[in-house]
């Protein structure tokens, strides 16, 4: 089983862009006014999870691993 991938709770995210600016894999972008993770690019480093000021990002196992 791999490590959990980052997922943004779109109900909490306020689109500050902090997570996008620190992602080492360019796996985050702004989409429809909220941050969005491209799962295939995410390397589970969790930097975005730690950086989010309001706790809108958490780790989740990919659907095929549950």
């Amino acid at each position, binding site marked *: 089983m791999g490590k959990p991938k980052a997922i943004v709770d779109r109900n909490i995210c306020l689109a*500050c*862009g*902090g997570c996008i600016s*620190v*992602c080492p894999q360019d796996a985050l972008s*702004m989409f429809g006014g909220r941050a969005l993770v491209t799962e295939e690019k995410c390397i589970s480093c969790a930097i975005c999870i730690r950086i989010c000021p*309001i*706790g809108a990002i958490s780790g989740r196992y990919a659907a095929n691993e549950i």
Partner: protein
Amino acid sequence: MKYDVVIVGAGPAGTVTARFAAESGAKVLIIERRQEIGVPVLCGEGVSRKIDEWGMLEGKRWIACNMEGARIFSPDGTMVKLSAEMAGNETGYVVYRDIFDQELARQAAKAGAKIVMNTNAIDLLREKDKIIGVKAKQYDDEIEIEADIVVGTDGVESKIGQWAGIDTRLDPKDLETCCQYTLTNIDCKEAYCDFYLGNKIAPGGYIWVFPKGKDVANVGIGVLGNLSEAGMPKKLLDQFIANNPRLKNGNPIRFLAGAVPVANPVETVKDNIILVGDSARQVDPITGGGLTHCLEAGKIAGETIGMAIEQQQFDKETLSSYETGWKEAFGKKLKRNYMVKEIFLDFDDKTLNMLADSLKDIKFDEISTFALVKALVLKHPTLLMKLRPLMKISSEA
């Protein structure tokens, strides 16, 4: 659709660049992914009165409050008062950033720049290796916008820089992760911008209280990325407000999150590319203030664009007069303050308290650096060791 310049992002950096480019004859398009300029307000809303000299804004509608100065509180509550002139780039006016940004956009439009909203850049447009514009998504349509110069004023999360091959990725230690309330029903009759320091209050950052009226203020926090954890800024800010007699009865009318680069600036020009503002990391690493810089840099960028169009030269060498210009204006200060930031980070709460205790009775408008250091060290001799690297930097500057 072919323009001389396409500017990605209609914040202050983008609209000021647009205005001065348009005034020097360029055909300018600004694209903005949001549906309202200036909203959401990702900012503490403090700015120096230095902006008056530049005359970029008309009227007074964008001013919420005139500030007399700043008060800095050390972890044990010791207060150091600074006049507005001494307090740096964030004290002078507290502004309504939404109106402020819209006024700058109005000036850009008046100069002839075209603004389109709901248009999100998704990639650079290239012909072989040459950048010839941007691809954007406008509602559900993908459009191509051709331009000789692409300006990235797309903020802290800048993609334009990255797509053009500039490494804009931030190390967490070079990012302040922030959130803020606009609080009403509080007491802020005194016209001071307040800053609260301490490793338990805001690790590697500070909490600010900037009055926007007698009973309303912008109250926020910045925590340094590498010292933060998921949701920590919000938790610490809520805790601070709940325990502060002046704020605890406040009611929020706005809640926002933000991210501020406190990094060394990046490369700001490439062939056919210019970066201005947060995307170029033109932010004071000590205070996190960037408004004055991006207005100053935007003007230089706009004028450089005018010159480039006159010469029909869009290579890095031609555009680099922008980079030389902004570095002359404030580049040295940013570099020095980045070093000072690193030194400050080593200060524990005890050192901050000693510093504040030494500084609290000094009148800052009438003191030399020498007298300041003497006063500091006389009161707390152990500060000498801690301050030595700072003195070295200030003597080199």
